């Protein structure tokens, strides 16, 4: 289809160099750390795979990984349907569409630590609207004292922050569906649900794939927002993988194990994204066959 032209590599070269400089060099450095015991910058001992083995056996890490998986799963379960519903209810034209679009997209443009700050203020029982309102209702709410409340608050914050991404993706996908599809459905007397199930949802497959992948990998690496909001507490309730990793790397300055950890971390994300990608593609193909 596209003509083969190896010279096209020359056009890709600048991108390759930029990303190589900012990604491959640091990655190789991390690989280098991960096989050494770094006592001081001058004194390093090669330890082979020792750190990888010890990291794999770290029970705190298993707990953080379990918390992380639960959180990412919850994020997907809430944000994807909510995002689709929001996209379906957003007006398509006129000043209302513009206004809604701007309001919905606003949370995406807020620096991540400010997102944490906003919710830190909003959720406080003494000066925050949400916290004060919940306490007025007789609900003993405290995101700094109660582990469940902290966890739910982080989840709600993430839903608030990132559902717009899913919604905007789906909104764009919906706008791209040709009118003829809807006319055909009207002639067939299809119900709203049928229109959604057999026209809109299949057409959204592409954008939903990006949405699921982006939301999965970003929620899996969430750091700044819970760090500002709860600092990982109370206890370890909101210490997700990134937070745990930072505690190890910066707090205890265990560079070798931390490097081994982050490589494993990276591979987990890569693997899960790959599985998700393939699974969604299979589901999509199967659905297409059913329709035809």
């Amino acid at each position: 289809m596209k003509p083969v032209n190896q010279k096209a590599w020359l056009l890709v070269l600048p991108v390759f160099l930029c990303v190589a400089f900012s990604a491959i060099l640091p990655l190789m450095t991390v690989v280098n750390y991960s096989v050494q015991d770094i006592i001081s910058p001058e004194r390093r001992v090669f330890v082979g795979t020792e750190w990888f083995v010890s990291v794999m056996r770290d029970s705190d890490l298993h707990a953080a990984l379990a918390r992380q998986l639960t959180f990412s799963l919850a994020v997907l379960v809430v944000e994807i349907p909510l995002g689709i519903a929001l996209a379906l209810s957003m007006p398509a034209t006129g000043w209302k569409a513009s206004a809604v679009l701007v309001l919905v997209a606003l949370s995406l443009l807020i620096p991540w630590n400010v997102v944490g700050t906003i919710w830190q203020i909003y959720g406080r029982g003494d000066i925050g609207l949400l916290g004060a309102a919940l306490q007025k209702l007789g609900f003993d709410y405290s995101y700094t004292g109660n582990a469940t409340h902290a966890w739910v608050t982080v989840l709600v914050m993430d839903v608030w922050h990132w559902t717009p991404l899913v919604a905007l993706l789906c909104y764009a996908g919906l706008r791209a569906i040709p009118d003829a599809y809807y006319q055909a459905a009207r002639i067939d007397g299809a119900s709203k649900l049928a229109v959604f199930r057999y026209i809109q949802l299949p057409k959204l497959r592409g954008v939903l794939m990006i949405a699921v992948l982006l939301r999965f990998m970003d929620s899996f690496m969430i750091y700044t927002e819970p760090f500002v909001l709860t600092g990982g507490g109370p206890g370890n309730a909101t210490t997700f993988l990134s937070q745990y990793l930072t505690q190890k790397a910066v707090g205890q300055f265990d560079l070798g194990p931390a490097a081994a950890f982050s490589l494993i971390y990276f591979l987990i994300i890569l693997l899960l994204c790959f599985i998700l990608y393939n699974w969604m593609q299979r589901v999509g193909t199967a659905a297409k066959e059913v329709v035809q």
Partner: protein
Amino acid sequence: MNTVSSVASVPPLAARAPSRSKAFAIDKRAIFLVAYLVFAVLPIYWMVSMSFKTNNEILSTFSFWPQSFTWDNYRTILTDESWYSGYINSMIYVALNTVISVTVALPAAYAFSRYSFLGDKHVFFWLLTNRMTPPAVFLLPFFQLYTTLGLMDTHLAVALAHLVFNVPLAVWILEGFMSGVPREIDETAYIDGYSFPRFFLTIFLPLIKAGVGVAAFFCFMFSWVELLLARTLTSVNAKPIVATMTRTVSASGMDWAVLAAAGVLTIVPGAVVIWFVRHYIAKGFAMGRV
């Protein structure tokens, strides 16, 4: 361009859906939408309202809007250099990053959209994997790399570091827009004797203006909201506003009002930019090779 105008010209969904129980359905949708918008806006409103209060009022009385309205918090920030220089620094590296990202992504996206070459699909997916590296440990190699190069605490350092996630994104978005331009246009231009650079700059680029705008918007956005890399690679001269905020929080024992005002000021640039590209953002989100 047809891809752009179609965003605005499609009739509303309600008009196309079956008309049975139409009024009722619209109401349900509207209620849901309004409920979500309230959920979305209230936390921001609360911070905005707080930024116009005094610390005394914040801590002593609980009011939905400011009782003793004051501009003092904004005055504090806009007259103190350690505060407002943060905004200037952020804008400089964000602008630098956006320009570099889009400039290098343009030819690459053209290559991906027009030719097949050795490993093209692999490179395209590899670009995506650069978004998957957990930042915490990668901070140290970045720190060492830029110290060695003598770039620490410069705007260029942050701009270069942010290329990791912005260049792949820009390539994705631009490739989507470029694939929407028929290949016959390229072929006709070459037959007419245009050289590649001349064709690209005078014919092709104007055709994908909207795509360039969208890509620039996303680079702006992701560079603007990032904290960890920006904070690690700067100390004084290029310290971004997001870092200034975190340090002031811990140092001055919670000056809530000023903190809220600083937060509001970090939202303003994004809100302004989003207003200008509002017709295209949704389109930009959907671009990519899927």
